[in-house]
């Protein structure tokens, strides 16, 4: 227990993970970072991407879509707009979402709408992350 950090992944709809882990990594806006027991206090924003944690030899991967992370008092709290375990991801849906996002991306580029482009890019990144994590 002494060498573990309490990881909590919270989304608006549920508490996804709450357990003591050996190592957790998260996709910070300034680069991926990892946290182990007794990490110094840290507050970071996260981008769309993959986080994972290691507990007793089991690695678990989670798809995150942005949010932020607070590490303090041997406790790492990840607040994400949405988060899914690799085992929960519906690959078909993710693939469809990717196609849709690709199409939107092209449309947005053709029209040069900044907001649409940013949205399409975000959707594309989310879909890619999910497909990647689900192992496809």
């Amino acid at each position, binding site marked *: 227990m002494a060498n573990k950090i309490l990881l*909590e992944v*919270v*989304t*608006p*709809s*549920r*508490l996804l993970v709450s357990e003591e882990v050996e190592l957790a990594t998260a996709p*910070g*806006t*300034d680069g991926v*970072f990892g946290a182990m027991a007794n990490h*110094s*206090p*840290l*507050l*970071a*924003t996260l981008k769309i991407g993959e986080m994972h944690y290691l507990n007793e030899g089991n690695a678990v991967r989670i798809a995150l879509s942005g949010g*932020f992370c*607070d590490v*303090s*008092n041997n406790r790492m*709290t990840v*607040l994400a*707009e*949405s988060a899914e375990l690799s085992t929960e991801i519906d690959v078909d849906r993710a693939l469809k979402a990717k196609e849709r996002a690709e199409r939107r991306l092209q449309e947005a580029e053709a029209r040069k709408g900044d907001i649409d482009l940013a949205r399409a890019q975000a959707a594309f990144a989310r879909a890619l992350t999910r497909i990647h994590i689900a192992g496809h």
Partner: protein
Amino acid sequence: MAALKDIKLKIVGIKKTAQITQAMNMVAAAKLRGAQQRMEDFRPYAEKFSGVMAELAGAGINPDAFPLMAARPVKKVMLILVTSDRGLCGAFNSNLIRDTEKFLKAQQAEGREGCLACVGKKGNAFFTKSPFETLHSSVGIMDNIQMFNARQVGQEVINLFLEGKVDEVQLLYGRFINVAVQRPTMNRILPISTEGLEEGEGEKSEGPKATYTYEPDPEEILNNLLPMFVNVQIMHAMLETGASEQAARMTAMDNATRACKDMIADLTMVYNKARQSAITAELMDIVGGAEALK
């Protein structure tokens, strides 16, 4: 005899109404459990969020540097009114609407302009006919409340605020206190103030606070967080209203069922009396006829 049959029909009709209201009561009870569960699920997120905000607020930030926190002279106030999409829930929506009107009139009396953003069909339907301007409306989303609904409303409101079209934003929703009590509650959400947050600070961070590392710097993090904070508050209001709506409907339907039962009891009494007097009249006829034959 015609009167007897009419009463009988009426009793049958009311019985059917009672069945419907009873069923609606049970449906509302089941939905209330779901809505309460969602509120419970959302709570950890909201609490953690406030905790982090408090942490940042404690990091010595100048609120005037952030457009979303900077207070300015108020010329136009916006009220986000969260009501339900469906009726048949007693005075729940009317209470919210009444408070909205009161608020907007009070603002006018003080020389400020008032305008609205309506979430939920009921409020929207009411205020489309009123002189107050509705700048945004989201309807048909209260049955299945999702974070992206709240984000949409939040985005719209933030844009209006940043463009200077409104100078202050209030949020009015039906706060769920318990199954019997729901209270219209108003909070200011823009400009964001950190005052309310700091009280939650003492509980978890006792140690020296200056040791936090920020990635990127606190200003940038806060810039990311502030719009999300608005969304979280709107989401919270929507979930509370959702639960309150079901609770209000349960009470209303319970009352309706009870009223039906009372009416049935009264009508049954009338029916029995009418039947008895009909029988008596018939007997009198027969007896009278028999007497005449003697």
